[in-house]
C-alpha cells in the first residue's frame, strides 16, 4: 500500500495525543498530581494540539476536504465514521477535564470522573482507528490480531514519552510514568516482533488461482499483458511495495528508536539528579520514539500487500 504521509502523520500525532490523555486522566485519578497541576494542564493542552493537528492533517488526504463533516454520518456501520465521531465526542470530556484544572470552585468541572472518562474515550478512538485497518480482509498484513493492540499500545507509549518529557520540564517526574514506558515498550516490542514473524511466515488464502479462477492449484498463472501500459490508480495506490532488505533495515531502526532507546531512557532518567540531564534524556527518548513511530507506520503501509495486485502480475499477496 502506498504510504500516504498525511495518514502516517495523523495516526502518529493523534495516537500520541490520545495516549497522553490516558496518562493525564489516570494520573489525576490516582492522585499523582494535585488538581490544577501545571503538568496536567500542559499534558491535556498538548494532547488537544496533537490530536487537532493530526485530525486536520488527515483531511489533507481527502479529495474533498470541505465535505469532511459527511464522514460522521455513517456512525452505525463504518469504522472510519466511528473514529470521526469518537474523536469529536472525546473533545467534550477532554475540554471539561482541562477546564477543571483551572476552575476548582465549579462542581461540574471539578468532578473527578472527567479524567477517567477522557482516558476511556481516548482509548476507544484509537481502537476504532486500528479497526479501520484490521477489518480489511483484502490486506493480509492488516487483517491480523496484532493491528488494533499495536495502534493502542504505540499511542500509549507515545503519550507516556510526552508525559515524561513534561514531567522533567516541571521537575516533577513520576516513577509510574517511567515504569509504564518500560512496560509498554517491552510489550509493544514483543507484539511487533510477533507481528513481523507472522506476516513473514503466513501464507495467503487468496492466490492468482482464486483471483482468476483459472488453472488448478499447481498451475502457475502469469500476467501476459496488463490492461494498461502505464500505472493506473489501483497500481499506484495498492501496488507500492518495499524491497525486503530495506524492510529489514527499517524494522531494526523502528525497534531501536521506538522500543530500545525509550526503555533505556526510562530506566536511566529516575537515577539522575540533575534536571538538565533529565530533560535531555526525556527529550532524546521522545524524539527517538517519534521517529520510531513514523518509521513503524510507514512500514505498516509499505509492507502491506493488497490482493488486487494479483491481477497486476504479483504471484502472492
Amino acid at each position: 500500500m502506498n504510504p500516504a504521509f498525511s495518514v502516517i502523520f495523523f495516526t502518529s500525532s493523534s495516537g500520541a495525543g490520545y495516549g497522553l490523555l490516558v496518562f493525564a486522566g489516570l494520573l489525576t485519578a490516582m492522585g499523582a498530581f494535585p488538581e490544577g497541576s501545571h503538568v496536567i494542564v500542559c499534558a491535556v493542552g498538548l494532547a488537544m494540539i496533537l490530536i487537532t493537528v493530526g485530525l486536520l492533517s488527515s483531511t489533507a488526504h481527502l479529495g474533498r476536504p470541505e465535505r469532511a463533516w459527511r464522514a460522521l454520518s455513517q456512525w452505525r456501520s463504518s469504522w472510519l465514521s466511528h473514529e470521526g465521531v469518537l474523536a469529536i465526542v472525546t473533545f467534550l470530556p477532554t475540554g471539561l477535564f482541562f477546564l477543571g484544572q483551572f476552575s476548582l470552585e465549579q462542581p461540574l468541572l471539578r468532578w473527578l470522573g472527567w479524567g477517567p472518562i477522557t482516558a476511556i474515550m481516548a482509548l476507544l478512538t484509537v481502537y476504532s482507528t486500528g479497526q479501520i485497518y484490521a477489518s480489511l480482509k483484502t490486506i493480509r498484513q492488516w487483517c491480523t490480531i496484532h493491528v488494533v493492540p499495536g495502534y493502542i499500545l504505540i499511542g500509549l507509549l507515545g503519550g507516556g514519552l510526552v508525559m515524561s518529557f513534561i514531567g522533567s520540564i516541571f521537575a516533577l517526574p513520576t516513577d509510574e510514568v517511567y515504569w509504564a514506558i518500560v512496560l509498554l515498550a517491552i510489550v509493544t516490542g514483543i507484539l511487533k516482533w510477533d507481528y513481523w514473524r507472522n506476516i513473514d511466515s503466513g501464507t495467503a488464502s487468496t492466490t492468482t488461482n482464486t483471483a482468476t479462477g483459472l488453472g488448478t492449484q499447481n498451475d502457475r498463472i502469469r500476467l501476459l499483458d496488463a490492461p494498461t501500459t502505464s500505472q493506473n490508480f489501483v497500481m499506484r495506490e495498492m501496488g507500492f511495495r518495499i524491497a525486503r532488505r530495506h524492510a529489514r533495515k527499517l524494522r531494526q531502526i523502528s525497534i531501536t528508536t521506538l522500543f530500545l532507546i525509550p526503555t533505556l531512557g526510562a530506566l536511566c532518567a529516575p537515577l539522575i539528579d540533575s534536571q538538565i540531564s533529565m530533560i535531555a534524556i526525556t527529550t532524546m527518548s521522545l524524539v527517538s520514539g517519534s521517529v520510531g513511530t513514523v518509521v513503524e507506520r510507514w512500514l505498516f503501509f509499505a509492507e502491506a500487500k493488497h490482493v488486487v495486485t494479483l491481477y497486476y502480475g504479483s504471484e502472492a499477496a
Partner: protein
Amino acid sequence: MTSLPESPCTKKLGLVIDLDICVGCHACAVNCKEWNASGHSAPMTDWNPYSGTEKRAGEDAGAWGIWFNRVHTFEVGEGADSRTVHFPRSCLHCETPACVTVCPTGASYKREEDGIVLVNSETCIGCKLCSWACPYGAREYDHSDGVMKKCTLCIDRIYNENLDEADRVPACVSTCPAGARHFGDLGDPSSEVSTLVKDRSGYDLMPELDYKPTNKYLPPRPKRDGNGEDGQPPLLATLAHEGQSNNDPTTEGVTGAMLRWVDIMLSR
C-alpha cells in the same frame, strides 16, 4: 445508507463473462469508457494523455486515467499445456461488499431494488477507503473531481426509455464482438444468465473473501486433443486433402497458372 440493504436483494443484475470466448480485443473496455465518459459518473478523466508532459518529476508514468472495465491477459500452465486467457475485470456488484460498509459518508451504496453498487459523487469525500476494501480493483479515483468512480452497470442504459429495448444493456455487453458478455438477473434462477452459469459451471472470483460477487465467470472449455496424424486437427486435415485434389496446381488456364505461382511462393 451505507449499510447494506436489510433484506438481500432478490433481483441481482449483473454480468456473466465467458472466458472461453473472450478474444481480448478490449472493445468492451473502450466502449465502457466511451459511454460512461458522458454517463452517470462522468467524466472519466485522463491525466497526461499525451504522455511525457507531466510537470512534476516522477509523475510521468505514461498516460493514465479512469476505466471501469479493464482486460488482463493471463497465461495459465507451462509449455505446450499452457493457454492464454483474456480476462475482463469490472465491478462484480457483490452481495456483501465491504466497499459499501466501510464508506463513512454513505456515498457508496447498494441499491435494494436491483443490487447495483453505486457511488454518489455529490457526497463522496474521496477518502479512498472503499478502494482499499474492494478486492477486485474495481474502483478508481478521480483526482480532478476528488471523488471515487466505478462501474455503474450502465444504469443509464439499462433503464433508459429513450433507447430501443434491444439497446437497454450495458455498453460493454452490446459491443462485445465475440458475444462473451451477458447481462441479466442472476437472482432469477430461470433467467438466461442463470442457466448459462448452471450449464457452464460459472464461478465467483476470490470466493474465500466472501464478498459474494453477483457477476460470474465461465471457465475456458477444456482443450481438445485428438489431432490428425500430421498434427493438424482432423477437420483441417480433411479440408487440406480435399483442397489439394480439387485445386491441383496442374490445372490448365489462368487459374492454374495463378495457383501454381501461389504454390511456388508459399513453398519457398
